[in-house]
């Protein structure tokens, strides 16, 4: 019994070590989305081209929904990669978040348009329903329009290959 007691500090050390080590690789900025497994929130809005759309227009195929704005520098950074994904056949919808329509149109003309269409969200209320807290954010929807994955920050080669693509494939095969 006495001998066992000697191991107590060592066990405490191991436990502490485990939690501290875990802490090293946790990103407190990365919030779990409350929407995973739930359908994309209902909305009715017009696109940048003036078409009326709703959440039903996002269904049908596994797709990405990208939240972006012209005031967001990281969005510019990821734009080229989104273009590349679109060329490879990935369906991407855009939500133009708290932005000005004219600026957004110019941006798409200059940088290319990877989006099927862009939902205008001038007052940020679609974003709010989605739980957006910083652009850019990217959501993966399955064929039925259910949110399956959320990524905060830019989509680049590493993020796509390690995080999004495996899920994309998984839901495409279903």
């Amino acid at each position, binding site marked *: 019994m006495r001998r066992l007691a000697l191991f107590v500090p060592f066990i405490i050390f191991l436990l502490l070590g485990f939690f501290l080590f875990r802490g090293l690789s946790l990103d407190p900025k990365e*919030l*779990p989305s*409350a929407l995973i497994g739930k359908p994309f929130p209902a909305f009715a809005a017009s696109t940048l081209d003036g078409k009326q759309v709703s959440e039903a227009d996002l269904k049908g195929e596994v797709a990405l929904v990208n939240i972006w704005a012209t005031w967001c520098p990281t969005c510019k950074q990821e734009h080229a990669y989104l273009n590349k994904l679109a060329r490879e056949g990935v369906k991407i919808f855009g939500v133009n978040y708290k932005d000005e329509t004219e600026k957004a149109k110019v941006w798409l003309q200059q940088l290319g348009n990877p989006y099927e269409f862009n939902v205008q969200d001038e007052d940020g*209320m679609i974003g*709010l329903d989605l739980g957006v807290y910083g652009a850019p954010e990217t959501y993966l929807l399955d064929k039925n329009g259910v949110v399956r994955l959320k990524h905060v920050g830019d989509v680049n080669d590493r993020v796509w290959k390690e995080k999004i693509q495996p899920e994309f494939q998984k839901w495409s095969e279903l």
Partner: protein
Amino acid sequence: MIHSALKRFVCLIILSFSCSSFAVIELLEFDTEVEKERYQTLIDELRCPKCQNQNLADSDSQIAIDLRQKVRDLMDQGKNDEEIKSHLVARYGDFVLYRPEVKEVTYLLWYGPAVFLFIGFIVVVVVLRRNKQDSSDDKEASLSEEERQERIRQLMNKNSEK
């Protein structure tokens, strides 16, 4: 001399209480004082998802401004506090609550401190008990006066033999 020191002290006290009034910048009109209080309590208790260590009241980030607006809108729609909170939790997760609900995943958070306090208490009791026992053990083991003299004699003899 004393007078100016006192003045300075009073100024300091007044200043240290003045910060909270700067927290919300928007000018909002409320019908009643009760509504205003309710709004203030809500945005004090809801956390900003972007700037993680601030509540909605303190934060100046765009998302906090939007969320404050949302809280106001929901209040105007006649939602009660619980409904407003669950509306935001459904979108941003439990994270937005500074006082999370008591449920399975938050048991450790809520009851952890009490459990640790209890463990600490047990440790203290055990240590105290053991100390007491040790000292009483000593008493039992202690020798009578005669025995002690005998012991001393033995030891001294041993030493002189060397």
